[in-house]
């Protein structure tokens, strides 16, 4: 079976000032390759500074790479520094929903902006789509007139999810999106994500340090350390039999 998303040899280097005139190259991502099938979840774990968030940004098209390709459904969307595809197929959800939404816009305006800039739908079609998406993530249609401050944390995470889902993405990147939530709200969000995956075959890239969630939700795990893939494989195999030291240290604590 052809994998949905294929990432090949991603490299990212940045220049850091080393002296008065000289520069030093520091690589943030080194030769990262993986593939995700439809309806699968890849969990990315690692310590701070391992390059998890950089990877998330690169996948969503918000950051550049030096070399490497991203192939979605046998279509090249990123080849080195060039970004060929649009940002509608891979969407990113941020850690803190309270700060990632514009407080001056209503939910309808926020969602409408996504559609206006990325699709050619008419105003009536856009409204229909917004209503559909809101009910898909478990919010009411009336909620579209609300401002972000009128929601609770769990509802805001749903709004963030709606913003990601409104363009019918194939892959959703969750950058610590579940860590800041309260346990009961987190359980609700996890249920919602799993349900969406079952119904529409969404794939997730789950970036988190919550190991029990990784165990519960993911099919594959990738362990990063200083921008390198230390371990990559089936979740159960890695949890029962971790090979590398980094991974063992992460799993024991």
């Amino acid at each position: 079976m052809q994998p949905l998303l294929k990432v090949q040899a991603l490299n990212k280097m940045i220049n850091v000032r080393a002296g008065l005139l000289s520069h030093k190259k520091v690589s943030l991502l080194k030769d990262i390759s993986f593939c995700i099938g439809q309806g699968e979840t890849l969990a990315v774990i690692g310590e701070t500074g391992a390059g998890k968030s950089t990877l998330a940004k690169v996948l969503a098209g918000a950051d550049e790479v030096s070399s490497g390709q991203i192939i979605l459904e046998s279509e090249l969307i990123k080849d080195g520094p060039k970004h060929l595809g649009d940002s509608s197929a891979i969407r990113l959800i941020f850690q803190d929903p309270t700060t990632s939404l514009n407080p001056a816009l209503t939910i309808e305006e926020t969602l409408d902006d996504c559609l206006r800039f990325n699709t050619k739908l008419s105003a009536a079609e856009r409204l229909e789509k917004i209503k559909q998406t809101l009910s898909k993530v478990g919010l009411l249609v009336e909620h579209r007139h609300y401002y972000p401050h009128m929601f609770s944390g769990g509802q805001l995470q749903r709004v963030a999810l709606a913003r990601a889902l409104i363009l019918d993405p194939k892959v959703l990147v969750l950058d610590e999106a579940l860590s800041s939530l309260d346990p009961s709200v987190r359980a609700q969000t996890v249920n919602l994500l799993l349900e969406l995956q079952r119904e529409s075959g969404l794939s997730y890239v789950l970036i988190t340090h919550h190991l029990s969630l990784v165990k519960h939700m993911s099919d594959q795990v990738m362990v990063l350390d200083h921008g390198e893939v230390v371990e990559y494989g089936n979740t159960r195999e890695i949890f029962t039999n971790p090979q590398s030291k980094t991974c063992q240290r992460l799993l024991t604590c």
Partner: protein
Amino acid sequence: MQLLDIRNLTIELKTSDSIIRVVDGVNFSLKEGEVHALIGESGSGKSLIAKALVGALNKRWEVRADRMHWRGVDLMRLSDEKRRKLVSQDLAMIYQEPSRCLDPTAKISDQIEESIPETDQSGNIFQRRRAKKKRVRALLHKVGIKEHSKVLSSYPHELSEGVCQKVMIAMAIARSPRLLIADEPTTALESTTRAQVFRLLKSLNQLKNMSILMISHELEELTDWTHGMHVLYCGQMVEAGPTEQVFAHPRHPYTKALLQSLPDYDMALGHKQPLYALKGTIPTLQHLPIGCRLGPRCPNAQKACVVTPKLEKEHGHSYACHFPLHKQEKEHTLEQELQEHKQEQS
């Protein structure tokens, strides 16, 4: 010896049109050398209780309590000055988000030096200064920071969140307090640093007999090393007791829901199966329900739940619920037995 004994603690916030009771009649006690956990979701008032204890709340909050005894002394009846003296001697607090709570304009060395008490120093000014420097280094080593000179000469923004948290702990234990209040000490940290911080707190508890009050919403990390557990929901204490007992036999539906929202709690739960979650969200402070505040979300709420349930206690395990889970199970089995009996007869 009873270190802390709080009865009926109520914290109210006066707004322009109404009075909001944010913390409603919380009872709480802690013995010397014990580690207790205060668990609740955001907005449940756990940080408020800690702040009321150290007296860090401003005038807008009205704190009332039948008694708030600290080693036999009622904190509520002390004058502000005396209370401040007592609290600064015996209590220390670690706040959430360490990098924000440290002074951004001062170096770490100055900040730690400030927290070392002046009283236990002797000698002339130079001797004292040298002793202080030595003490600062010793404190940093104690919390597991090896490269002290680099950390001491840097500002908070230059350090990682984990190191900042360790510096906060170093400042908190400088006076060797009897009770350390840790307000979500690990939310900003990733798993390896978090384990280090927990190990550090654990060793402080065991070696120095320091009591610790952990405030958190992460159940899984607290269950294996705390002695007691107090679960709060919207400012009401819903369940309290020894950790193992609460963990193994939750009496309150909310505690059960919290436990079941952990993917690891129920071993029978399959991969990618939906987790158990309560419906709805935590009510906002302006719209608190009357009676049991879990009422609208509770799976077994009934008419009686509009009256606030009293805290019932048995074998050190207390809960506030009209329909606690163990009694329901008992009724359930009784009903089953009755039905079986009837079937046999017929």
